[in-house]
């Protein structure tokens, strides 16, 4: 007995349907896991504490007020870090021993010491040298200085990732070093490092909580201030955690959209032979 030859079109359809069914099943299980863990956590919290609605109603707006400060600190710090990292990367790639020495010393020192120590140093130690700055300024400077060092290495790698042929082409057209860098290398390097800048901004949103230690009234500071006096830190810290989490998800989403937009603007993906 010979088997009837399968209809190719029907087989293709059958595979497609079964693949889709499997994909849906996978997604359902995946979401179920999230829901279960979340429900477990909520149950734990409810068993541990007595939910005081009145307290939450007063405390949530107070804590949310700190989110603005968190974003402000992160924004100015990342701006400062980008400027420092641009200079740092140029220094690290410079043939000038002074520029290279300064840049690599900066990177080594900052990456070799804890961020918290750097924040405290600027706030507590610099006044001994007669430099007294407001807390907010100290926080932004410390975070910008710290992230600038890490981003220096990212920017350096980004610049080095631009193929050497680009420099050769620019130079063969008579461009000097400055024009070559500004018009040919930097725009390409910038596209390479944009995702990393986004990642660092999201990391900064969370690391900015460290400046609560010097009294900058951002999210974590407010959560602590609200929870401590009445011994209800569980409630306030959970609220702060949720706000951080939501912010992270939102900015990750925005970042994803921006990257997608840039990729399509680049037109570099759809290669035609």
């Amino acid at each position, binding site marked *: 007995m010979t088997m009837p030859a399968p209809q190719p079109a029907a087989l293709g359809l059958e595979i497609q349907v079964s693949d889709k069914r499997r994909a849906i099943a996978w997604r359902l299980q995946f979401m179920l896991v999230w829901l279960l863990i979340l429900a477990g956590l909520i149950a734990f919290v409810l068993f541990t504490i007595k939910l005081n609605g009145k307290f939450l109603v007063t405390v949530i707006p107070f804590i949310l007020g700190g989110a603005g400060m968190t974003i402000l600190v992160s924004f100015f710090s990342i701006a400062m870090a980008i400027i420092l990292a641009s200079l740092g990367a140029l220094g690290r790639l410079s043939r000038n021993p002074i520029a290279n020495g300064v840049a690599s010393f900066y990177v080594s020192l900052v990456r070799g010491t804890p961020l918290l120590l750097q924040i405290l140093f600027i706030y507590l130690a610099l006044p001994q040298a007669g430099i007294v700055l407001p807390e907010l300024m100290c926080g932004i400077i410390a975070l910008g200085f710290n992230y600038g060092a890490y981003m220096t290495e990212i920017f350096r790698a980004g610049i080095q990732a631009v193929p050497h042929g*680009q420099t050769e082409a620019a130079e063969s057209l008579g461009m000097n070093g400055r024009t070559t860098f500004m018009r040919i290398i930097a725009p390409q390097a910038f596209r390479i490092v944009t995702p990393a800048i986004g990642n660092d901004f999201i990391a900064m949103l969370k690391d900015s909580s460290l400046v609560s230690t010097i009294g900058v009234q951002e999210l974590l500071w407010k959560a602590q201030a609200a929870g401590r006096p009445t011994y209800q830190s569980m409630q306030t810290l959970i609220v702060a955690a949720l706000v951080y989490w939501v912010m992270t998800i939102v900015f990750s989403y925005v970042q994803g959209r921006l990257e997608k937009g840039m990729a399509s603007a680049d037109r570099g993906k759809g290669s035609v032979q």
Partner: protein
Amino acid sequence: MQPNTLSGPSGSPALGVGDLVHTMHPAEVPGALVKPGAEPILRATAIQKFFGLNHVLKGCSMTVYPGETITILGRSGSGKSTFLRCLNFLEEPSAGVVEIHDRRVISNPLAPRSKAVKEDIRNLRLRAGMVFQEFNLFPHLSVIRNLIEAPVHVKHMPVAEATELAESYLEKVGLIEKRNEFPARLSGGQRQRVAIARALTMQPDVLLFDEPTSALDPSLVGEVLKVMESLAHEGRTMIVVTHEMSFAKEAADRVYFMDEGEFVEVGPPEQVLADPHDERTRKFLSRFLNI
């Protein structure tokens, strides 16, 4: 003209390239596009290059008259690309002099490059347009912006004027309809033709081609060679490093054959390709004749 009397590293008398080439002024060669009594547009004298202790160019000289097309042949690794890259100092010669039109740069790798020397090299490069094996178009710029970037930002040409010039060259390479396309959307052959137009838009005295078809799919080689041949026939001065024998045969006024960092044979393509005097040239060419 005075032949270059060079001696090789071992003291052996190197080939007197001048003797071989210019027993006849190129203008006297039948069919040559060189105007009688023309002065050389490019002169490279005794170019040497070391990579570390590896002596890759052992004193190479070349004189090119306006309108000539020179083809440099030779095995991979013989130093022909390095020689070409020395002509516009993308590779700094370890010793030697390069003159293009009114610019003359004497290589001095022992001294740090001063501002004046950098400016000299930059001006030398303005007189030599380069076409690379890997095209090296600027991927973040559209075709037309690739072409006008240097005229506008190096020569400070008004954008409208540069654009007009660029469009005329895009027309010449047959890609005017790709004016606003990005390089990634072009085929290899189209990219290379844009690269040629980009070099032309700077209106250089000499065009340097570094294996312009080696990175191309065989089916795309023809369109690039066609553009290059038409440039050669309209009297552009070109120096072409290539493995394309057909181009050497069709378009070259003179063929230089390089082996182990020396020009071992120079002459019109009919002679060098059909009746090579040198044993190494003969050996190299036999591979192609068998096809």
